[in-house]
């Protein structure tokens, strides 16, 4: 091999050597003949004859080295480059089209790669699982669940895990090397600059060892740190250490003041560590503290509060671990029927669980860009066919001169591959740009979206797709060219019309393009209609001009519900005095900002309480949010501790729990131990979890009757004009009451509503953009084919006109051709769309995937725009001057 390589590098010298050798041979032979008395001239020609064809020998010798094919490839590529340079217009269009298709694909693939394909940033991520609990339809009595849920939060029946159950899952199974709970717990940081609310997590002590990381300076949590009543310790992130502690190496000796307690810093995490929570939310998590669960919590099996991550023992399968858990779950159900009946633990690979919410939509987007790549391929194939037809003369001359079919086909393939390569380069450049746009548009709630970068894998995939497309769109023209018959082509060369089969090919390609873009248009239509329907959904309240914010009072400074209530009452009074404020409200949570739920008993059916949304609200709540009162009254300042407990319910609750009776005067309570509350009012239904949420039965409690288990945390202001202008004023009032109290999550309700629809808006925008590009490409394709066809038929059309055909008839002729193409494409596309929209079903809102209006709109738009594109060449055909057309012949 080495000898070969050296030979290849020295091939020119080697060829000269060989020639010299052969010349010597012939000369010596001639000399020998001369010595036998033959004339010099005669001798040389005899010697030549005896030697044979020198250049053939040379070729054969060279081919013996096996580099012939490489050299021919080089020739093919050079020739291809030259012929592409000769037609810069064609080349530019082809490269740009390809670049557009590949660029979109690359950009979307980059996101898909980062979000779904890349391994999680932990050692041996395949063994990491996420654990949650599932509750069968019929709920146990003793259960309330709050706290953040990871990944596919809100899936019906799925809930966070109870710390008490977790102890059993940990001790009674053998499948896991470790299981650790974690839950998001923001705390107020004071003592370092302005008071700030920073996000952190409470975790079980083995949390970091489950994930396979260890604090670099300092130590990990120990079991002792995780005991109830242990000295508070904290591990901070590298980033927090850099920013807040000035990268002080002595930081380990320091303490942090969180929610009024002092936490000793025991460790700093390695740079760029991310908790699984952070893979799904954009917030920075700055610190970790041990859960140190209280004995009360550890005895409460119905309290589902935490997320759980675990690491499987080596060699244990998911199924085995699941079976293991099932045994424990049923044992717990027997042991604690009150809380654990119908509750079972379930696990899934952590990686799958994190992305389960966006998987569908990302695959749909990737599929859509794959369709775009297909369309660009078809488009370029079409262009190449036209070009091949124009080069028929050249091809047939080469045939006549003895080129092999293979060689001609290779030549055409070389051109398409070169185009594909250029397209790929353009695609990667464009892809980088599109990716930035994509990331700017993407909602921050997509897991791992912050980690999106282009790496070699993306380039590799782009290059692979480009090569594949190069072959795909090059095959048809190459096949066509190889089929050319030298004699026939030379005969027709002067007129340059494509053969019948070529015309058919182009028609097939154009129809395909129309079909593919129809699929995208239908998809975009369905999503658009879903979005419009969604936007039209009535929230049940008026989000305009309302500012909401979070004022989370730390338990240490405000230990009792009464002290927190007093803070809010004072704040309400001060803020109401600000100019521009119409009304003020506070509650545990505002709509679309999370909440509290549980079972409620009524005096009609004390045993079987329905699962409802619960909320503790201030007297101004209904007025501030614009929730209409339907019957009875709202809350007043008189509904305070000491006064008879009261509740307000929504219409759905009234219908469900008090059918055929007046709910006013009836009594309800949340949980068996809670006081009975008299229903004093009925308000309009609202969609608490957003426009695509369900309307659920709702019970409102008076915030001033402090028997509820949640803390007041949200504050809202309805203003006369732009609510943004009040942010500073409200903040100042908070700080005048408590200079260490941070104000966070300040948003207008309109922003909140918009953000809730962000993911859907993102999908819809992208798919609509893709469909528009597809439509554009299809129209260009159709336009090209028809223009070409008209210019090819100049003679024929000229004769028709000369024989008295009216321009209208010619117009009809061309349009009929276009209609045929579009019709075929539409028929194919409708069939494909019906089949493919199956994957879209879960992304739709309020309509079925077979919604005929979306299909009709897509077909109508496509047909109208493509007929418009057809009109231009058709008019050109009908406006031909017969004399000129015939002369051209």
């Amino acid at each position, binding site marked *: 091999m080495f*000898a070969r390589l050296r030979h290849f590098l020295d091939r020119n010298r080697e060829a000269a050597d060989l020639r010299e050798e052969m010349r*010597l041979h012939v000369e010596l*032979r001639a000399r020998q003949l001369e010595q036998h008395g033959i004339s010099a001239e005669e001798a040389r020609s005899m010697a030549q004859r*005896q*030697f*044979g*064809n020198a250049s053939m*020998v040379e070729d054969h010798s*060279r081919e013996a080295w096996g580099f012939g094919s490489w050299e021919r490839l080089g020739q093919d590529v050079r020739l291809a480059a030259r012929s592409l340079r000769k037609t810069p217009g064609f080349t530019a269009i082809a490269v740009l089209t390809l670049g557009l298709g590949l660029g979109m694909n690359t950009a979307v693939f980059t996101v898909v790669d980062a979000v779904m394909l890349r391994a999680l940033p932990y050692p041996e991520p395949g063994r990491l699982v996420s654990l949650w609990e599932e509750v069968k339809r019929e709920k146990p009595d003793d259960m309330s669940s709050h706290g953040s849920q990871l990944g596919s939060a809100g899936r019906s029946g799925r809930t966070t895990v109870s710390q008490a159950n977790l102890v059993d899952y940990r001790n009674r199974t053998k499948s896991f090397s470790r299981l650790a709970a974690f839950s998001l717990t923001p705390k107020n940081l004071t003592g370092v600059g302005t008071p700030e609310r920073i996000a952190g997590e409470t975790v079980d002590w083995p949390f970091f060892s489950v994930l396979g990381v260890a604090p670099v300076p300092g130590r990990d949590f120990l079991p002792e740190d995780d005991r109830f009543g242990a000295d508070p310790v904290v591990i901070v992130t590298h980033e927090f250490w850099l920013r807040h502690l000035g990268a002080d190496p002595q930081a380990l000796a320091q303490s942090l003041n969180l929610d009024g307690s002092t936490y000793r810093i025991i460790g700093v995490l390695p740079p760029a560590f991310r908790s699984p929570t952070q893979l799904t939310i954009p917030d920075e998590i700055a610190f970790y503290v041990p859960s140190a669960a209280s004995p009360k919590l550890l005895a409460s099996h119905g309290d589902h509060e935490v997320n759980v991550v675990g690491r499987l023992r080596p060699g244990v399968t998911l199924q085995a671990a699941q079976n293991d858990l099932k045994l424990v779950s049923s044992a717990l159900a027997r042991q604690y029927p009150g809380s654990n009946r119908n509750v079972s633990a379930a696990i899934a690979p952590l990686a799958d669980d994190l992305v389960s919410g966006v998987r569908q939509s990302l695959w749909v987007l990737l599929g859509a860009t794959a369709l775009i790549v297909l369309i660009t391929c078809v488009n370029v194939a079409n262009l190449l066919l036209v070009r091949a037809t124009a080069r028929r003369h050249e091809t047939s001359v080469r045939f006549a001169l003895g080129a092999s079919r293979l060689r001609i086909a290779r030549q055409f393939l070389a051109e398409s591959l070169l185009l594909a390569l250029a397209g790929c380069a353009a695609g990667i450049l464009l892809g980088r740009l599109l990716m930035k746009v994509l990331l700017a548009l993407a909602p921050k709630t997509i897991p791992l979206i912050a980690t999106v970068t282009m790496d070699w894998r993306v380039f590799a995939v782009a290059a692979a797709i480009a090569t594949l497309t190069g072959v795909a769109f090059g095959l048809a023209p190459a096949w066509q060219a190889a089929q050319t018959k030298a004699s026939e082509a030379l005969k027709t060369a002067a007129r340059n019309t494509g053969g019948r089969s070529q015309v058919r090919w182009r028609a097939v390609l154009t129809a395909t393009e129309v079909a593919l873009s129809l699929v995208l248009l239908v998809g975009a239509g369905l999503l658009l209609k879903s979005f419009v329907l969604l936007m039209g959904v009535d929230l049940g309240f008026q989000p305009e001009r309302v500012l909401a914010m979070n004022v989370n009072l730390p338990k240490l400074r405000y230990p009792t519900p009464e002290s927190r209530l007093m803070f809010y009452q004072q704040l309400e009074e001060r803020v109401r005095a600000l100019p521009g404020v119409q009304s003020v409200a506070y509650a545990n949570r505002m709509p679309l900002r999370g909440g509290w739920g549980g079972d409620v008993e009524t005096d009609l059916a004390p045993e079987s309480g329905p699962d409802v949304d619960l909320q503790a609200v201030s007297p101004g709540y209904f007025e501030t949010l614009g929730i209409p009162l339907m019957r009875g009254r709202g809350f007043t300042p008189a509904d305070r501790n000491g006064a008879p407990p009261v509740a307000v319910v929504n219409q759905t609750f009234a219908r469900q729990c008090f059918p055929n009776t007046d709910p006013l005067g009836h009594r309800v309570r949340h949980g068996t131990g809670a006081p009975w509350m008299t229903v004093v009012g009925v308000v309009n239904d609202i969609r608490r979890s957003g426009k695509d949420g369900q309307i659920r039965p709702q019970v409102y409690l008076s915030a001033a009757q402090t028997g509820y288990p949640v803390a007041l945390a949200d504050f809202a202001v309805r203003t006369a004009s732009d609510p943004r202008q009040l942010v500073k004023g409200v903040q100042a009032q908070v700080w005048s009451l408590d200079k260490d109290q941070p104000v966070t999550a300040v948003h207008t309700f309109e922003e909140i509503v918009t953000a809730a629809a962000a993911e859907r808006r993102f999908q819809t925008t992208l798919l609509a953009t893709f469909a528009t590009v597809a439509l554009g490409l299809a129209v260009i394709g159709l336009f090209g084919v028809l223009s070409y066809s008209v210019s090819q038929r100049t003679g024929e059309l000229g004769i028709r006109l000369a024989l008295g055909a009216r321009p209208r008839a010619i117009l009809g002729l061309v349009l009929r051709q276009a209609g045929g193409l579009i019709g075929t494409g539409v028929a194919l596309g409708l069939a494909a769309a019906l089949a493919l929209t199956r994957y879209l079903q879960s992304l739709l809102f309020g309509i079925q995937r077979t919604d005929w209006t979306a299909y009709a709109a897509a077909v109508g738009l496509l047909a109208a725009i493509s007929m418009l594109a057809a009109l231009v060449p058709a008019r050109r055909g009908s406006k031909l001057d017969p004399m000129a057309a015939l002369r051209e012949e």
Partner: protein
Amino acid sequence: MLILKTLARSGPLHGFEIAESIRKTTEDILQVEEGSLYPALQRMLIKAWIVGEWGKTEENRRARYYRLTPEGHQQLARELARYGRVAGAIARILQTA
């Protein structure tokens, strides 16, 4: 085989000498187009059965002299053995006829 045998017998030779040698030894019975010698030589170079070195002829002309490598000797032995078997087989068929 012929080329290898010739080189084995006479040591380094250049192309013309190989052709002449074969012609003379076979007394003109085996005469091929002399040019075909060269692709054959190139193939043997690739297989490293022979090596070529540039030298001068008696008339002081530049010429490439080929000689056998150890692999070339082995190959020759293999080919001679195979030839022997085939020739023997043919001979036996002819004898029985």
